[in-house]
């Protein structure tokens, strides 16, 4: 049985005047010990999809279709009381901004023990010593003393460690990390990623890492999904994705990242245009207006995810599958011309 299986998930938000179609049918699955990356720009629906899975969408958000199965049970059909038992115990989430994600009027220890006592049958004392062990686990010095500190007495990196400690408190099987390093300094980013990677390895946890940072993905994800306008446009094993991007959007993302080995005079290639307006459903490919490869077919027909042809062994099925939703995948010649190719990985 697959640990977490998302199928055709659709989420929309309705305001008085219009409806925003944030997620338009995404599917993925995660197995224990696997790290999955979801990459996309701001507003493409990557965070919303995970909030929907956990059932904590904002009030005006609604799941309009699809399923999200955790160990075979559909989270979207579940009554809230049951879902609450899964949240925090079996599935947990780390949020983007550690500065605002902790309750400012409760001590860190209180916030940690609250989670422990809610989900595990432990008394106050046991919860406190467990909380201390958790802080030590995520690398906070003087864990015992710091339990009685308030969030404002921690630095950003330390707060994110506390958030991770809260999320892993009950040894969840799935951890969703929503831009866990975006608000942090680069050096701290590396530490936090290392911590996450270590947790995945030692606890056999599944990690869904949501980010817009290709460097982060390259560092720790087994498999990566590229998301655009609420859909996955390309999905592949991470090394394959960096070596052989086939969707023009993925290609564009890779080209817009500055590279150390490029000449200083070499210009970055931004993706022109703006992200799609999500208030209407597109008939064709959502990326067409910004795409250099778009043809009439791109405008007329919505491309679906299909296995990439002729891309060697990885074109196959299963967990090594490389899928792309595009009528006109980027040709090999352009990849070579842009300096992207096999054997070169985008360690941004």
């Amino acid at each position, binding site marked *: 049985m697959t640990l977490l299986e998302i199928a055709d998930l659709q989420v929309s938000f309705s305001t008085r005047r219009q409806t925003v179609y944030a997620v338009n049918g995404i599917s993925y699955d995660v197995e224990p010990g696997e790290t999955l990356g979801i990459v996309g720009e701001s507003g493409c629906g990557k965070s919303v999809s995970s*909030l929907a899975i*956990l059932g*904590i969408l*904002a*009030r005006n958000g609604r799941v309009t279709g699809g399923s999200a199965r955790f160990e075979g049970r559909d989270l979207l059909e579940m009554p809230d009381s049951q879902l*609450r*038992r*899964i*949240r*925090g*115990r079996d599935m*947990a*989430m780390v*949020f983007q*901004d550690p500065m*605002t*994600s*902790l*309750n*400012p*009027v*409760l*001590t860190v220890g209180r916030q940690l023990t*609250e*989670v422990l006592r*809610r*989900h595990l049958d432990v008394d106050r004392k046991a919860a406190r010593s467990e909380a201390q062990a958790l802080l030590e686990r995520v690398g906070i010095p003087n864990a015992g003393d710091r339990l*009685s*500190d*308030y969030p*404002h*007495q*921690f*630095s*950003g*990196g*330390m707060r994110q460690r506390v*958030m991770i400690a*809260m*999320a892993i*408190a009950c040894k969840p099987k799935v951890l969703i990390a929503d831009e866990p390093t975006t608000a942090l300094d680069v050096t701290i980013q590396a530490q936090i990623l290392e911590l996450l990677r270590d947790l995945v390895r030692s606890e056999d946890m599944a990690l869904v890492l949501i980010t817009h940072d290709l460097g982060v993905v390259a560092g720790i994800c087994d498999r990566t999904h590229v998301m655009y306008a609420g859909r996955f446009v390309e999905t592949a094993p991470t090394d394959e994705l960096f070596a052989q991007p086939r969707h023009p959007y993925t290609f564009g993302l890779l080209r817009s990242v500055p590279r150390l080995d490029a000449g200083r005079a070499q210009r970055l290639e931004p993706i022109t245009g703006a992200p799609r307006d999500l208030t209407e459903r597109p008939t064709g490919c959502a990326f067409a207006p910004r795409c250099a490869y778009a043809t009439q077919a791109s405008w007329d027909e919505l491309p679906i995810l299909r296995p990439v042809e002729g891309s060697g062994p990885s074109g196959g099925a299963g967990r090594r599958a490389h899928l792309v939703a595009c009528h006109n995948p980027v040709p090999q010649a352009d990849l070579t011309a842009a300096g992207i190719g096999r054997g070169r990985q985008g360690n941004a």
Partner: protein
Amino acid sequence: MSIAEAQAAELAVEQPSGLLKDALVRLRRNPGAILGMVLIGAFVLLAIFAPLVAPYGPAERVGGLATNPPGPTSEFWFGLDDQGRDLFSRIVYGARLSLLIGVVSVAVGLTFGMSLGALAGYFGGRIDTVVMRSMDIMLAFPGFLLAIGLVTVLGRGLGQIMIAVGITNVPVFARLLRGTILGQRESDYILAARSVGTPGPRILFRHLLPNSVAPVIVQATLACATAIIDVAGLSFLGLGPSDPGLPEWGRILADNAGRLNQSIHLVIFPGFAIVLSVLGLNLIGDGLREAIDPKLRS
């Protein structure tokens, strides 16, 4: 150790625990708030130890009836009133009444106001609309007029008057709490709390309320002062407590307004008592606002 941690450590040494303590530390640095606390502290002591401080009982006649009662002497510090009662003793005992009025009416206002505001802010939607529109209707009446109307309906007992003044505060507290809860409701730490399976009521009471009450506390202090003035005002208009023996400051003022020319002490001393107590509460309220707000903004 990073700079931020060093700063945090520094903070930790200076102020070991929490927001409330931080606020108290800042409050102590505010001279206005100190003056306010001294004033209110003095009134509280007077109220508690009234029988020890006051030489006579509040209704005790120590002189004869007089149209123009004598002013302050060494024996009667604030002079006598027309019934021959010692004014100093009456004002000392009046501190009990005024503080009681302030505290009880604010408690009434807080109880109903906070419940309604929390309901409206947390549940939103139709509940919010119904609650807040009724609050708007109440706010459409000037507070004092509303109190007059309520006293007319409820009656002129001290309890009813305190309830009436308290009710005029309900919409103020409800609005304030609803507003801050609305601001906090979508914040990241609430989302984070939900993401670990915290149930709704616990989110409201443990996460939302503690983060939203600070401005309400400030407002409550100020409302306490307003309540004292309102009750004094009601008494002045003849809608005060019906028991004539009660040494309510506003009532003393009202009863003697006609003697302004002959026996000015009967007006000045109760007037000062009202002014000083209200001033003290306002100074504390303003100090609290300054002490609490910076933390809210950061």
